[in-house]
Each structure stands twice: as C-alpha cells, then as structure tokens.
C-alpha cells in the first residue's frame, strides 16, 4: 500500500513541474508587462521598478528564483496589488470560491436529480415538458445574461436580496450568485437524470421489483436511483470545471472576491506572480484530488494495488 502511494506521489511531481514551466513561459510570452500604462514611466523609474521585482534578470534566473520561493511555499508578491502577497490573495479568495462552488454544485445536484427523476416518472406529461423546456433555456441562456436579469428582478425591483457581495454581511448575499452559477448545471443534470432514469426504469430488474409489489417511490429510491446516477457522477468532473469557469462572470457581476476574478484581472494586468500562483494552486489541487481518488481506489479495490 505504501509503495503504491509513493509511486503515485512521485508521478505527480513531474506533472506539476511541467505545469509550472509551461505557465511561466506563457505568462511571460504575452506582450506587455505588469507596469505598462498609458501614463508611461520615465526610464529610470522603470529601471528601479524592474530591479525591485527582478524583472531585469534573464528569464531562466527569474524562473529559478520563482521555483525556490515556491518550494518554501512562497508564491511571491503580487505585481499589481503591491500591499499583498499572492499567498494573501489566494488565502482570502479560495474559501470564497470554494463556498460558492460547493453550494452551487450541491444545489445543482439536488434540484437537477429531483427534477429529472420526477420528469422521468411522468414522462410525456405537461410537467415533463415544462421541466425540459426550463432546462433548455437554462442551457442556452448564458450566465452574463441571467445574472443581471436576476439582479434587476430580485435586488432592484423587489429589493428582496442584495445586488452585491459587499453590500451586506448577511447570508442573503450568497443566494443570487449561487442560483446563477447553479442554473446551467441544474439544466444539464436534470436532462441527464431524466434520460438515464427513463432508461433504467425500462429495465427488467425494475419490472421484477414492481412485480414484487413495491411502490413507485420505494422502487426509485432503492433500485432505480443509484444506477441512474452513474452518468451524473461521471459528469461531475466537467461540471466542476464549468462552475470554476462560470464563477468568473458571476464574481465580476456580483463583486465577489473569488479566485476567478483575481485570475482574470491578473491576466489583464500582466500580474505574473498572481496568475502563476493561481495556476499552480489549481494544478496542485487537481493533482492532489486525483491522488486522493487513486489512493481511495487502491483502498477499496485491492486488485488495483497489484498493478
């Protein structure tokens, strides 16, 4: 078991290293620099700043400097937000994005699966068709259209919810962002569940269960739900990716200090360290999660270990 874990761990390191190198090269390849602006800096000041941030050193040297900082857990100072280090910014932004994403995912799964199953059970009815129509619009209408509409309705007209994150500290400020983020996923998941559930409900073992006298809800709960969920489970990967990218727009519109917003702003500002830091962070997270899953597989299924 230990050897299995170690092998997996060692395999993760080159992956991470490759990501860092590629990200570093790409970030520096973009034209323009972190301190360019319309109000140009006089040459000597530009030189002072370049020196202070080691931008005047050759690229390999900058890379090694970055790498050695990385090994000590220091992601460097933000080039743009001069009062903060990248560690600071990621430290405050990640919990926010995580909370937002996790709640959106939860909402999407709960509502999506329920709606999809209910639609499958009433296949062909008005209910079914309404649910499917809603999900179609949820998929087609982009986030940056839905979000302002929701804000207009619930925050401006009805004044039930705050229009922005910083307007209040109460929990109500998370409602609109979570709903906005979850909507497209609810749409996908409900369609997926419905199709899968219809397929499962047509199978022989379901007919057997019915023949045994079990009620519909019991059949669904005990026998149909789990196999029907398999496609949804495999969709979780892309779903999480979609929520991560969708969160950028949501964060921008609601003014939420999350990782997505910092990532985009960092890219536009050529804030090398911030962008690199977030890329490395995400990469490390994904590698870690994969590692955990691999190890869990090894624990659950002994056959895997022998390979």
């Amino acid at each position, binding site marked *: 078991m230990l050897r299995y874990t170690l092998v997996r761990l060692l395999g993760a390191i080159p992956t991470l290293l490759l990501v860092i190198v590629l990200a570093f090269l790409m970030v520096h390849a*973009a*034209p*323009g*620099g972190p*301190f*360019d602006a*319309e*109000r*140009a*800096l*006089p*040459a*000597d*000041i530009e030189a*002072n*700043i370049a*020196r*202070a*941030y080691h931008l005047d050193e050759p690229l390999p040297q900058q890379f090694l400097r970055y790498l050695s900082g990385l090994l000590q857990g220091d992601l460097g100072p933000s080039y*743009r*937000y*001069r*009062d*903060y280090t990248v560690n600071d*910014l990621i430290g*405050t*932004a990640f919990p926010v994005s995580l*909370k937002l994403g*996790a*709640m959106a995912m*939860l909402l999407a*799964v709960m509502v999506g699966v329920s709606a999809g199953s209910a639609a499958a059970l009433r296949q062909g009815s008005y209910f079914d068709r309404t649910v499917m129509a809603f999900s179609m619009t949820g998929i087609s209408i982009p986030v940056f259209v839905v979000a*302002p509409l929701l*804000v*207009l309705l619930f*925050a*401006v007209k009805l004044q039930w919810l*705050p*229009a*922005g*994150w*910083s*307007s*209040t*500290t*109460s*929990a109500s400020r998370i409602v609109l962002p979570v709903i906005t983020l979850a909507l497209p996923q609810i749409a996908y998941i409900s369609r997926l569940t419905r199709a899968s559930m219809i397929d499962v409900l047509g199978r022989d073992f379901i007919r057997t269960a019915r023949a045994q006298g079990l009620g519909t809800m019991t059949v669904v709960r005990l026998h149909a739900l789990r196999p029907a969920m398999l496609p949804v489970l495999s969709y979780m990967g892309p779903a999480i990716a979609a929520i991560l990218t969708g969160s950028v727009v949501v*964060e*921008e*519109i*609601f*003014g*939420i*200090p*999350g990782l997505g*917003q*910092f990532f985009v*702003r960092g890219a*536009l500002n*050529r804030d090398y360290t911030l962008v690199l830091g977030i890329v490395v962070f995400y990469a490390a997270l994904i590698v870690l999660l994969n590692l955990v899953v691999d190890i869990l597989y090894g624990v659950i299924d002994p056959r895997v270990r022998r390979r």
Partner: protein
Amino acid sequence: MRAKVLLLLLAALAVAAVVTCWEVPRDEGPVLNRGLAAEPESLDPHKGRSSQAAEVQRDIGEGLVSYTEQGELVPGAAQRWEVSEEGTTYTFYLRPEARWSNGDPVLAEHFAFSLRRLVNPETASFYAQFLGDLVNATDIIEGKKSPQTLGVEAVDDLTLKLYLDRPTPYMLNLLTHPSTFPIHPGSFHEHGESFVRPGNLLSNGAYVLEKWVPGSNIAVRRNDSYWNNAETSIERVAYHVLVDAAAELNRYRAGELHITSDVPPDSFQAVKKQYPGELQVSPTLGVYYYGYNLTKPPFRNSPELRQALSMAIDRDMLAEKIIGRGEKPAYSWVPPGVANYEPTLMSFASLTQEERNTIARGLLAEAGYGPDKPLEIEIRYNTSDFHRRVAVAVQAMWRDALGVEATLVNEEFQVLLANVRAREITQVFRASWVGDYNDAHTFLSIMQSSGSSNMPAYSSSEFDSLVERAANQTDLDRRRLFLEEAERVLLADHAVIPLYFYVSKHLVSPEVSGWGDNVLDYHYSQHLSLSASE
C-alpha cells in the same frame, strides 16, 4: 452505503457553508457607500498609481495643501506658507494641532522622511518623478546620490523647507497629490513594509483604514485625532470595487450605493431621464484623442495629410450623437476650465463641417492622395465597445468626406500600448491623457520630445523651447503666454487629433449633501454628509 456517506458529506458541507456565510449584521451606523472603478494597487502613498488609489488615499491622508469641494486650493496640513522671490524656496508652517490617528503630532520631519522615501530608488515608486523639480531629485532617482541629499529640510518641528531647481508655479497643486503625503516614521520602522496594512496604517487625514477585502471593498472610519475632525460629518465610508459599470448602476438602483464612479454609456440617456437630479456631469481634465505615428510614413513629414484627416472629422456630431453622454468636442489640446489658461482653438474651429471637408479634400490632394492613389490606413484602439463605436464613426467620416479607406484593428490595452511605444506598425491609434494637476503644463509637457508619454513621438524644437521657457518663468502672465503659444504650435503641426474632452459622470444619491463639481473630480468624503436614513 457509500452513497449514504457521500450524501451525508454533502449535507454537512452545505450546512457548513451556510453557517460560515452567516454573520449577524452589526449596526455600525450610517455608512457612505462609494463605487470605485478599479482596485487600488496600494494604499501606500508612494506605491499607489491609479486615480482610484488616489481617491481612497485622499481620505486617509492629507498633504501640505488640499482642495475644497469646488476645487480651490486651501491649506491642508500646513496652515500657511511663504515663497521666496526667485520662486525656488518654499517654506511651510505646519499646524500645531495636526495629529496622526494614534495621537502623535504631525511633524515637518515626517514630511521630509516621506519625500525622501518617494525618490528613493528602492521604493520603486511610480510617482518618484512627481516632485522632480526638487533639488537632487533626479539624481537620487537615478541612483547617483543618496536620498538624504534631497532638497527638503525640516528646520524645526513645524517648519518645512522645499528647495527647487527652478520656479515651479504649479508646485502647490503638486503638493495636494497623495504621493506627497507624509508617513509616520515610527510606524514604518516598527512594521516595515506592512505598515500599510489595515490596523497598522496611521492616518493624518480625516479617516483611518479599517478593513480591506481585496477584490471587494475597502472600509474606513473617522479619524478622531484629525485636526479638523469636528467638520467631518460622515462616520464611516465604504468603497466598493466595481469594475463593471452596469453592475455598479444596479447597486445604485437597489439603494446599496450612494455615489457611483461612472455611468455605463449605453444607459446614459435612460439614467438622465430616470434620475435627473442625481446625475452629476462635469468637465474634467482629460482629452480623448487619436495620435499619429510621426516616425513613419504616411504621417511623417506630411502636415497637409494630418490636417486633412483632422478636419474631416465632425467632432460636434461625434460628441452629441455618437457618444451622447455630455462630453464636449475638442478643438484644442488643453481642456477648458484649466486654471490661469485659455486654450488655443484649432484654425478650423469656427468653420462649418462642409467647409472643413472641402478644404480637407484640397489638402489631401496636395499630399498626393486621391481617387487614383487612395489612402489606406489603420486605426488601432483598445478593445472596447465604446472605442469601436468612435472608430467606426471616424472611419465612416473619412470615407464619406475624403474617400480614405481606414481599417479598424482592435487590441488588448497592454498590446496596444506596447505597439504604440514600439512605433513600428502603428499609424493612427486611440489614446487619452488625464491631467495630474490643474495646470496646462500637465498637458503640454508630455508632448515634449523627451516626454515618456509622448505617444505620437512628436518632436518640435520650437514646441520644446516654448515649454522650457514657460517652466522657468516666475511671472504667471508671461508663463501663460508661452504655454498658449506652445499649444498653438502643437495644434498647427496636427501631431494629434483631439476628439473630445472627458466629463465626469456620477450618480449621487439625494441623501448625500455637500457634493461639488470640480474639474479635478476630487470629492473628499470629509466634505460630504448623509441625511438621516436607515
């Protein structure tokens, strides 16, 4: 079994998320909510750069000199000053009652310490050159001299002397800028670079930094030790970083903002109708222009061509119909309303557009272009719906009036800047300039051959010498003549095509009083008050 565990985990996650999100809203009393168009890079006076950073810094600090809400210079941390006859020595007498937020008195040495830090190459300040006229400033920035040699002297606790290389008539205006604000040396030595963190940062201004959530908002509260604290009405101010103007408008409509930083262009007309008493539009010190790349053909050595293209643009229609947000068409380089200055207008300012087009066609032919040799050029602009709209209008005007075929190229802002600086592929490009202080010099000095913000690479020895002579002139009236003549030369050369002058647009809630329109668009929170609400 596994599914049950998973479900339980998800449920726990949900509960945890909601619980951690829930904070009991504290009753903190009335807060002034202002919108900020961008996140400040830093609240360190020497590391800020954007106008948004300056906006916040103006509330949490104070310079020797300050402004009223109407834009008039008034004593700030200094209660009075004297200028020597040659104009090269300024003596400031500080207020004995001025205090930092921890109760320490504000001393002349604090200003001296601060200015030395500003020019110190290690600080890597963007505004190091701002007080470049101080003795030895340039040498220190270049690393040739120690910061201790800077032309500042704390004669005693409350007397500060500034020594200049040349008489700089707008010096007092410069001293209102946050880069000249003092920092507390004790705090700096104790905390090092983290002296700017909320909780550490001491303030000699009306407010103290309380909290900064990067990406979201900045909160400040009243500085009880401020010398003029009795006049400060509002207890707390929150700046909300809202990059998207449409989102900011929604917040205002929802009643969550008292002051917006801007109004989205597409909604301007609707907002004007819906909130007539709350929309504040006022001219500011900014010019939107198209620059020529003067180092390459076809615009190098071709003043007729440059003039023709400039004349063929109907600026009135552009400002009124295409833009339609209260901006003023620009027939000069320096905006109107600048102190002690009357902008020169372009020679064709009083003609009708028809007349201008006729003359332009003649000039185009003189330059050697016509139906058998059509002119094809590129207009570059940074990607934005608005800039595209302007470019499309200009493209159409040039085609209809002159038969010139212009291709539009849009680029990301940093890419455009890099291209303009490189001067290789650019021809006509969109640019803008916002003045740093209320004086014509801030607009004209950038067009000197040595100017680092000289985007068109304009190089005229006549212009350079006029600006130089103005800079050395103590007599304000003579100085003004030199500056106005310099502008005339710049416009006659048609180095640039000024299109319109910026206006500031804010939505100001009727709950706010004390708001004054001024050409610098400075609105100190300490001048405002909130009528009773909530």
